[in-house]
């Protein structure tokens, strides 16, 4: 393979991707589907943990306006060199695990991914809550909502577009970065990239990269669909065109009578 023929790389990559043998797992080798599953698994675990941490924290910071330094610190952590941190954590953590478990590698990987996913979710959640118009917040309290109700029934629904955008950028970053799991012996689509690189099997390496990109796009699309249904039209501004024109005309007519 590595010798390379006259065929351009793009065809060889396509050839690798479309070979049914590469998709199925064998007793010796995990196929594309298996690695895809593992990749999705790493990503979902990291995103769920990040959401559980960053969403409540962002809501609380945004609602109270206190401890905003947490957001700055989280953003500074974005500059962390991922591979370096991963290797360091593996060195620290993996000696505590023996035997047939990959926890010694999985835990460091997830920590790195979670650290990566928290800042966008946290800062966007915080900004989303902060951005709610003071008049709206004032009205909510003035009508007798408790703190919890103001947060849950008013601030959260209005912050959703920003929260979603934070989550989506976290998700893209996590899916792209989850390839490093393979760097520390775990599976995932990174397997093809690192193996391809090591074996100078460039179609396999590029194929792995293409799969990661495709997964990221599909995931983003799915979340975009969810967002469409979850976010109120009053906030996203997606009004049926006719209604919107009608109401503007009605508004003009009404104000001029």
């Amino acid at each position, binding site marked *: 393979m590595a010798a390379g023929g006259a065929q351009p790389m793009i065809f060889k990559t396509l050839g690798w991707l479309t070979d049914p043998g590469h998709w199925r797992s064998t007793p010796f080798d995990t196929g594309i589907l298996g690695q895809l599953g593992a990749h999705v698994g790493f990503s979902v675990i990291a995103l769920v943990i990040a959401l559980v941490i960053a969403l409540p924290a962002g809501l609380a910071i945004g609602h109270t306006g206190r401890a905003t330094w947490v957001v700055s610190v989280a953003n500074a952590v974005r500059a962390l060199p991922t591979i370096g941190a991963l290797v360091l954590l593996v060195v620290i953590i993996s000696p505590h695990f023996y035997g047939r478990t990959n926890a010694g590698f999985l835990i460091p990987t997830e920590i790195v991914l979670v650290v990566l996913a928290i800042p966008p979710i946290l800062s966007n959640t915080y900004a989303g809550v902060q951005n709610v118009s003071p008049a709206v917040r004032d009205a909510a309290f*003035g009508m*007798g909502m408790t703190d919890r109700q103001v947060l849950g029934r008013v601030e959260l629904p209005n912050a959703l577009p920003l929260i979603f955008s934070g989550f989506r950028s976290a998700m893209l970053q996590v899916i792209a970065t989850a390839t490093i799991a393979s760097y520390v012996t775990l599976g995932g689509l990174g397997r093809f990239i690192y193996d391809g690189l090591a074996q100078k099997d460039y179609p396999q390496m590029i194929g792995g990269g293409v799969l990661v990109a495709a997964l990221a796009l599909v995931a983003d699309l799915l979340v975009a669909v969810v967002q469409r249904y979850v976010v*109120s039209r009053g906030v996203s501004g997606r009004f049926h065109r006719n209604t919107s024109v009608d109401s503007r005309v009605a508004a003009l007519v009404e104000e001029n009578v």
Partner: protein
Amino acid sequence: MIRFDGATKRYPDGTVAVDELSLEAPSGQITVLVGPSGCGKTTSLRMINRMIEPTSGTIWLDDTDTASLPAHELRRQIGYVIQNAGLFPHRTIVDNVATVPLLLGEDKTKARARAMELIERVGLDPAFAKRYPAQLSGGQQQRVGVARALAADPPVMLMDEPFSAVDPVVREQLQEEFLRLQNDLGKTIVFVTHDIDEAIKLGDQVAVLRVGGKLAQLAAPADLLARPVDAFVAGFVGRDRGYRALGFTGAGTIDTHQEPSVAVGAAYPGHGAGIDGWILAVDADGKPQGWLPTGEEQRGDVVTDAMLYRGGTLAAQGGSLRAVLDACLSSPSGRGVVVDDSGRLVGSVTAREVLDLIEKRG
């Protein structure tokens, strides 16, 4: 009844926003708090529903000390309308209006039905119910704001400059409708504004506050205009208060002259028709549309809308002297047009006659 008993708001930096305020807003009436910026009018209002906690003093809601129950429970019993309506962008109009009933645990169907009633009551098309606030104009949003405050039928309403963010035409409309609504509902209302005209128009009683949060004068609007208690109040109620005071004097049975008129669409009247070179143009229902000059050359065969001078305001029969005098002063012919309840021409009157009437009553 809302009663301020020595209510004071002092901030940690020593600023006093409201200083020993004592006043009573009687049940079923509109009490307007008015004053220049920094006079503590909004702070006073917000102390009633404890959006701001008083530093000392007590505020009573009938026989209840407002400090004696949890703030959110207090607020659910008090309607609250603010300047930019503060509608919830993510909720439809009907759900915005149903907010407080839902907080009070009413079931959804009932709360929505009540909300629909109120949407119509404040003069909105029920078709708006399913729209979102962003799809409404400022004036419409403010109506929804009022409907939302009324939803749980609270005996007390607080209104913080509710009409100041809309244009003057809509503001006037909203004020009229608000007065009509209050006529039906008889709520105890505390209303904050910086606009003395609005205060005088809407208030059953007006409290003028001075900078530093001290009550300068509490009086009925007509008394306020007639007998300002000191130079500050006199300055604040303005120079043309004599003219404005006419707004509180009914014109009564003012004698009108018959006014010749021509219908829009009819043949252009001949030279010298009408009186002193002006003839009043009316539509098919007899509603005055504007003045047509007849002293100059004929400008067409028939009278069209485009030919009319529309400067004159119309005074309603039985309206105030201010409206009648204004109709005279604004009319290009010098004759003020008086119309009946359905807007049809009754007759005209001159400024001279209105002034004579004022002097006679003086």
